């Protein structure tokens, strides 16, 4: 597939946004459990604004993918059958809930509404946060399923796709949370950093698995099945046009194997290796800058990873577009 930058930015930005929110909420839960010191409302509000900003940026990026963005509202109608439609619902839902979450923190509406089991004070932010968490996970699922549900694209048609979107989104979000904490001088750097490293490593396992899987399978259909001509040596001579078409532009990346190999090593380094090392150094050096660097490097790496994700996908329609004459 031809890597679509609008979609690359959409998925990486909202992934980080969702992850960041999840980091905030996780932090809140930890502090509720008194495992972490209580943070200021300002921290949550600011974090939410960051998360929201990422989601909005993702949304804006996605608009560039659409031929007719002015009709985008129609995309919410087919949630019964279309993961894309579901994403279109889940994304604003998550955005709205995160907005409320941040707003309520900002407004300081943290007086417990009720107390569960005499130990757990439940305030409105906790409820909205839980809903937003649910929305975020649903959004991860929807976004990933847009790709994972395409059974013709074997590279994507795998639970690993969902795992990758989830872990890598969470990793980048926690990484950003660590960076924010470091930047704001809170003491949560180690907490977020640790979780970011854990998510990164999980993502490393799942992404590594998908890379391994994708390097080994053969496409279910071949030229013989595509034409219904069962001859061992079957080659296309002419695809019926010569100036290119949607079929040649949308489904081919046109990149060399060497470039893709380099890209793969680079994103593996930037998404998985460097951020983990930087967080480690940040521990050791107690640096407030290295977590920021870790996030930035990982995010850039994720853009490459997503680019690579598209190039991994071999669409069966490409069987019909091999040669021109």
């Amino acid at each position, binding site marked *: 597939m031809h890597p679509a930058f609008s979609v690359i930015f959409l998925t990486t930005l909202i992934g980080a946004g969702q992850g960041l929110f999840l980091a905030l909420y996780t932090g809140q839960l930890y502090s509720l459990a008194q495992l972490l010191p209580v943070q200021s409302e300002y921290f949550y509000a600011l974090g939410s604004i960051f998360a929201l900003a990422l989601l909005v940026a993702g949304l804006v990026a996605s608009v560039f993918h659409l031929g007719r963005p002015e009709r985008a509202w129609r995309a919410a109608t087919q949630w019964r059958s279309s993961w894309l439609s579901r994403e279109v619902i889940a994304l604003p839902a998550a955005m709205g809930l995160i907005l409320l979450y941040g707003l309520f923190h900002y407004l300081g509406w943290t007086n417990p509404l009720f107390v569960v089991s005499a130990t757990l004070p439940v305030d409105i932010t906790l409820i909205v946060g839980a809903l937003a968490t649910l929305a975020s996970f649903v959004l991860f699922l929807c976004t990933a399923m847009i790709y994972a549900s395409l059974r013709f694209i074997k590279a994507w048609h795998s639970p690993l796709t969902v795992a990758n979107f989830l872990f890598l989104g969470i990793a980048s979000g926690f990484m950003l949370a660590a960076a924010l904490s470091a930047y704001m001088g809170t003491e949560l750097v180690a907490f977020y950093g640790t979780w970011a490293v854990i998510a990164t490593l999980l993502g490393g396992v799942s992404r590594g698995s998908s890379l391994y899987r994708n390097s080994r399978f053969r496409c279910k259909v071949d030229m013989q099945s595509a034409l219904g001509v069962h001859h061992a*040596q079957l*080659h296309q*001579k002419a695809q*019926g*046009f*010569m*100036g290119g078409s949607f079929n040649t532009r949308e489904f081919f990346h046109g990149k060399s194997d060497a470039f893709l190999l380099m890209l793969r090593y680079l994103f593996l380094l930037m998404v998985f290796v460097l951020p983990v090392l930087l967080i480690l150094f940040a521990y050791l050096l107690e640096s407030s800058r290295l977590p920021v660097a870790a996030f930035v490097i990982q995010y850039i790496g994720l853009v490459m990873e997503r680019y690579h994700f598209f190039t991994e996908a071999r669409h069966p329609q490409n069987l019909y577009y091999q*040669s021109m*004459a």
Partner: protein
Amino acid sequence: MLDPTAHSDSDMGRIEVKETTCYMCACRCGIRVTLRDGEVRYIEGNPDHPLNKGVICAKGSSGIMKQYSPARLTRPLLRKPGAERGASEFEEISWERAFEIMEERLGGIRAEDPKKFALFTGRDQMQALTGMFAKQFGTPNYAAHGGFCSVNMAAGLIYTIGGSFWEFGGPDLERSKLFIMIGTAEDHHSNPMKIALADFKRRGGRFISINPIRTGYSAIADEWVPIKPGTDGALLLAIIRELIQTGLYDREFLIKYTNAAELVVDDPQRDDHGLFRRFETHIEEGCFDPENKLWWDRELDREISTHTPGTDPRLLGSFTLEDGTPVKPAMQLLKERVEEYTPEWAEDITGIPAGTIRRLAHEMGVVARDQKIELPIQWTDSWGNEHDSVTGNPVSFHAMRGLAAHSNGFQTIRALGILMTILGTIDRPGGFRHKAPFPRPIPPCPKPPRGPQGVQPNTPLDGMPLGWPAKPDDLFVDGAGEAVRIDKAFSWEYPLSVHGLMHNVITNAWRGDPYKIDTLLLFMANMAWNSSMNTESVREMLRDRDENGEYKIPFIIVADAFQSETVAFADLVLPDTSYLERHDAMSMLDRPISEYDGPVDSVRIPVVEPRGDCKPFQEVLIELGSRLGLPAFVKGDGSRKFRNYPDFVTNYETSPGSGIGFLAGWRGKGGEKFLKGEPNPRQWEMYKENGCVYHYELPRSYQYMRNWNQGYLEWARYHGMTRYVEPITLHLYSEVLQRFRLAAQGKLPGKQPPERLRKRVAEHFDPLPFYTAPLEHKLVDTHHYPINALTQRPMAMYHSWDSQNAWLRQIHTHNYLFVNPKLGEACGFGDGEWIWVESPTSKVRCMARFTEAVEPGTVWTWNAIGKAAGAWGLSPRANESQKGFLLNHLIAEELPPCEAGDHMSNSDPVTGQAAWFDVRVRLYPAGAEEPKQTSPQFEPMKRLPGQESRRGKWQGYFAGRFRRKKEK
């Protein structure tokens, strides 16, 4: 959105439906044109048309993009004073000014020496008019594109069976069982062949394709027999040999209907050696083949008049006549001729295994003999024998340029005609069928002028510009035996060049050989590009100057509808109309669209208004003819005779009161007659009411065996189609050719070839087919240039000269050289790489595409996809000029100097057919540092005045809104 089922397309605007005839190629299908608010909504096949029965091809369906093409010329143009020819610097002028220029110039030429005016036309469908104009003007220098197209196919078969393929006749696939297509470049001809071929395959017919390349029709063949180019003659002769050896020929057919049993004088010492022995009877001078010849009666064991009732002659043997003359039946001579042509011999030449050749012969022979067709149709032959049925041998053939475009093509095609003849398949069900006005006498009657005296100032030409020589005295030569025509047609160089040699006009005129001309008028012929060989040089010749600084070809007029490459070289440009804007007649006087079952002709009637100031070329000729006072165009008092072209078509008669005119249908005062009858003032209306086509279906008993069908021949004479009710005996043995050979051997009194040509004429005018390698292959170093290079016109572009067509050019935007992978690897390059193709003439750089569907000693490309930069309304960056290429640059228009002369055309020595397919090349990779661009490149052609400014990035055609939107 509007539910598509809830409305009708016809609600979207003001709809009109008009019928006319397509002109996107020379096929001439009937079309229905739907207009919406005056713009072309849809062009579809006319279901009631006999030719295409409702279907339409890729080109026909793209007519809209031709109509609204930005390459259209809309104003008469005159080269700017001082501007270089070829620089595309023009100024708009009025038609009146254009006519004044032509009237003055051509009037002067006509009064002085009419042959200094040359009129050559391309793929036009109005040769009846253009040829007549030339004759009336008095110039012999006229021809259409046939000489570089397929004249070998026309001449080779017409001189053998009195008809040929395509417009002239074709395979009866409706009843055929075995169909062999040999040497057909992709799609020649188009829709009727496609319709018939598909039906044939569905009925279970067996289709064999013999071709170096497997594309197009060959793709669906049951068997592909790859063959080396130019060797088809060897294959056909080996098949003929096998059929004779195994006795798989139709003896009865050969005896009754061919000259196979007729006795030929067989004594090389005698002057009449090789001529039929004729007995003395008074024979009216005519262009038929008199029946005063002899058979050898097997019972009486002596000679006897042919067709003596109750006689069974011998086909084979060697006999001595009563007067001591040694004779042999023509069939015996054929048998002796093919003796050496064994399948093993042919295998070496053609690359086809001997076993395959034998099997092909056996398949043909056995199907012909064992699957005979008998139709319960009564008919009477020329000798008065009544037949209760029409029988046929269901083996049929189709061939075209693959055979024709070689310098040995004429004899190859003679061999094909003879193969079809010995199988007994001529004008019989399941075999080859004629189309009216064929069969015609062998050869047909019209003759060129006999000498320079035929060209006189202010006088129509004495003879036809194009004709059918039957003997040396019919040649158009001067006292020294040299050419009178600028293209040297009908000279000893190319005696039977019945379609002329358009491909040599520019070279000859530039060299002044045989003389200089003044004005060259080109209509619809892209001589500065894909219609010329050695194109780069020809472009130079067009703008070359003599020592006085004058152009060597002083004045060039180009009439065309589009900004072709040739337009740049014009001094005067006449903008022609599109086919949707004009009247036309697909006339019985030219090449009508007849069917096997009877004559058909058709017309075009305008469906839209002409664009800008463009004017149909016919109107130009009629205006010019009237202004110049050419006899056929003016009344006795010199005043104009015809108002316009439609008026001309209605009222013109070949001679006063002849009743024969351009259109065969609805003649007579009230339209009650056909073929022959007084002019009918309502003839156009009647064509219009009938889908623009006239189809006369012959009675069933006249539909077969027409060469010898008394009823048919009488009918044809009655209706003015033929002059004689004489049988048209098939020329298995060609006495016509032998006459030329005898002259070359000094044995026939009358016109004699110049010494340099005696050997050539004697060799090639063999009365029996023979195989010899193409001329160029004998004159160039075939070890240095080991590869054959061919072109084919793709179906989606074929004959439609249409790279500017926005839809079609997306299918073929640029071209590759197709190369067998083994050859490519041997030459050191890979699939898709840039390579050089070099011939003795020139070299081109292009891209290679590997294909397993080509014989490894052959490379090929799609023809005329490559364009010169900026031509045809295309951007100079367009793929056509940057990645597309023209193979023509590699093809020599003249042979290397040889015994026959220093400037012999690269053509068949019999017919002058351009030998496009003889070119030899070598291949090597282009350097990595070289530009990824085809070579040669030319200075981009400029946009012409009156031509639409270039279209933008987007074009969305929607009928009824397209031009309106543009005008906003």
